[in-house]
Every structure is written in structure tokens, then in C-alpha cells.
């Protein structure tokens, strides 16, 4: 299987650690990522209005490119995953959007949602398997209590994304466990970090993140992992910053597989 890879804007710049670690680990785990040529930014937010056609085009272009090359598209960033998978769902189920987008793109073969959009975590869970991953871990993250922070984009809406149970997700916890660490389950792991509000109302972000971190810390978490650069930013910049270090899940993966860059860490 070819794992076409869509890094997205942030992963090429501010969230390089998320990206680089993911690529290295994928090599080790035997599913090398093939970066899509000439990908464009997905738009960062899903265009909810059914008449927003132009806003869907870049995602469809990536989906079409992946279709032409095996039909699987892997994403890492929660927002990219969210946007691309939802647009793909629109293309498969909404005839009006499908027609308009295809009219615009004038493809040789119209696109109708054929590509399978996978999150990196799904590849780990469904293609590699936790047991095998655990066996490949050379530097188990012993005695570390890690809280998974899902946020909103990775899980909702559950009916479309279908990554995991929206209210009681387990995929990241299973991941943490496979790396040899102890997953910490806490109620606020799927509550919003404030997202793009950081630009407008920092104080509110501070409050939302504090609630999340306090809940995680009360449950015994010593660090948090996330898949989303925006969440990572908000969780790092707010709520008694530094109290609960936040890392990308791929960083932990690289560490456990023994392929972390020596200088490593957040930029």
C-alpha cells in the first residue's frame, strides 16, 4: 500500500517536530510516507456552508492526487484530517457539492470521494497494530504518566470522522500504552482548547486551557500529547505554562522507537 502523505502548512514550519518524527517513525515501522507533490493548504477550517465550493477545492485536489496514486491519504495534523475527511465525505454523499466541485475542477474522471483518508494514528492502530508497535519499541517510556489530549477536530463530528468513540476515545491511550507509558484518562480530554480564539481573546484561552490542564493534572498526568499544532500551541502558551509539558504524539513515538533527534524537543 502506498501511504500518500499530506503534511499541511503548519507541519512544514512551526510544527516540524510533529512532521519529522512521523516520517522517521513511519520508515522504521515499514510504512514510508510519500509526500503529495504540490499540495496546498487545506484551509485550516472546514467550510460548513454547503455553498462554499472554492474553500473545498484544495482538499479535493489532494484527495484526487491520492486517488491517482493508490487511493490512501495519510494526515497528521488534526485540522487537516478534519477538513480533508469531511470534504471527502461531502464529495461522496452530497450530490450538489460533488457536481459543483467537479464542474470547477474539470477532471478527466470526476471525483466522488473514492480516496480513503487515514489519520496517522489509524495507520498505527489498524495497519501496524498496538501489539506489534509495542514489540518494536526499543526505549519504552517507563513510569511516565501521559494524558492524551484529543481536542475537538480529531473526533467531531463522530458520524463523519469515525476515528473513535467521540466521548470515550481510546486510540491515543492505546498508543501511549504501546509505548510503555501509562495513559491517564481524564474527562476534559475532548473539550476545546480555545482554538483560534488565541488571536482575539487570550484570557479566555487561558481559562479553557487551565480547566483542561487542572483536570488532567488532578488525574495524575505528568505530560500531555496531542496531534494538533493549534492545541499544542494553546496548551503550551496557557494554563501555568510549563506545568504540564505538551508534546506531539509522534515525538513520543520517535523517542520510544529510539529515532528521536538528539537536539529534539519543541522549537
Amino acid at each position, binding site marked *: 500500500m502506498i501511504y500518500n502523505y499530506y503534511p*499541511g*502548512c*503548519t507541519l512544514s*514550519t*512551526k*510544527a516540524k517536530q510533529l512532521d519529522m518524527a512521523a516520517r522517521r517513525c513511519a520508515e522504521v515501522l515499514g510504512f514510508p510516507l510519500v509526500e503529495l507533490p504540490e499540495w496546498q*493548504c487545506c*484551509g*485550516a*477550517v*472546514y467550510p*460548513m*456552508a*454547503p*455553498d*462554499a465550493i472554492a474553500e473545498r477545492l484544495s482538499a479535493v485536489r489532494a484527495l484526487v492526487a491520492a486517488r491517482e496514486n493508490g487511493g490512501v491519504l495519510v494526515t497528521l*495534523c488534526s*485540522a487537516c484530517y478534519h477538513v480533508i475527511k469531511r470534504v471527502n465525505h461531502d464529495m461522496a454523499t452530497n450530490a450538489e457539492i460533488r457536481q459543483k466541485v467537479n464542474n470547477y475542477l474539470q477532471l478527466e474522471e470526476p471525483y466522488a470521494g473514492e480516496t480513503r483518508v487515514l489519520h496517522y494514528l489509524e495507520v498505527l492502530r489498524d495497519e501496524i497494530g498496538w501489539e506489534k508497535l509495542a514489540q518494536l519499541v526499543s526505549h519504552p517510556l517507563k513510569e511516565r504518566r501521559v494524558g492524551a489530549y484529543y481536542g*475537538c477536530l480529531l*473526533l*467531531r*463530528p*463522530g458520524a463523519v470522522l469515525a476515528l473513535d468513540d*467521540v466521548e470515550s476515545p481510546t486510540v491515543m491511550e492505546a498508543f501511549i500504552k504501546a509505548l510503555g507509558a501509562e495513559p491517564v484518562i481524564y474527562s476534559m480530554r475532548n*473539550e*476545546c482548547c*480555545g*482554538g*483560534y*480564539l*488565541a*488571536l*482575539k*481573546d487570550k484570557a*479566555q484561552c487561558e481559562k*479553557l486551557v487551565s480547566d483542561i490542564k487542572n483536570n488532567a493534572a488532578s488525574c495524575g498526568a505528568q505530560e500531555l500529547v496531542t496531534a*494538533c*499544532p*493549534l492545541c*499544542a*500551541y494553546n496548551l503550551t*502558551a496557557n494554563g501555568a505554562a510549563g506545568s504540564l509539558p505538551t508534546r506531539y504524539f509522534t515525538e513520543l513515538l520517535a523517542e520510544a522507537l529510539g529515532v528521536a533527534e538528539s537536539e529534539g524537543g519543541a*522549537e
Partner: protein
Amino acid sequence: MAVDEKQLTEDILRLAATDVRRCMQCGRCSANCPEGFKMDLLPHRVMWDLNSGHASELLEADAPWQCLSCMACEERCPRGVSPARVMEALRLLQIRQQGNNKLPAESVEHYPSDMPQQLLVAAFRKYNK
């Protein structure tokens, strides 16, 4: 000029593409909204106004600009309604009009250098056209 409430409601519903009539005013959306403490109209009230023919008041509301599109309301709505989509429709109806950007780039005083692009793109797209 009197606003055509009916037309406005139709416009909102077309953009929102969610069946607001299913709403039974249980208030779960408002209970779950992380921004509810800062909203002038809670999501259930927005649904109520829309269903009771007071859509024009919603264009005055600040609530859509507080909404984070986290979709907790949609996910936990027992009736399968998406208040998040209604909020988006209310934003779009306004920012799609010329010169109606809510967060002009020059109004932002300080961009921390470590702010991810994703955040900037998302924010400007939610508040501007």
C-alpha cells in the same frame, strides 16, 4: 427598512443546512458550549429565535463571534441539530458583505512568533472574508 424575517430565516437555514425544527430546547448545546459564559445569547436561544421568527436579532448578537466551531453542541445534541452550523451561517451572512471583516489583520496588535500558521489561517478565515 423592515427586515424580511422570513427571507432572512431562509437564508440562514440554507447556509446552515441543519434541521433546526428538530430542536426541543433541551439546552444541551448551551450546557456544553465552552464559550457559553461569554455569549450574549446562548446557542439554545439562537435556535429558539430562529424557530420563532426573530432571526434579525441574531445578526446583532455577539454569540457567533464567540463560537469556536468545536462542535460539542452538534455532537451532543440529542436531536441531531447543529447549532455550530447556524453560528457559521450567521458569521457568513455578515462577513460575505463587502467591508464587513470582523478581525482585520491590522487590528491584531501582537502576533507571537511561535503562533502556528494553522491558528492564523483559521482565525482570519472565521472572522473575515
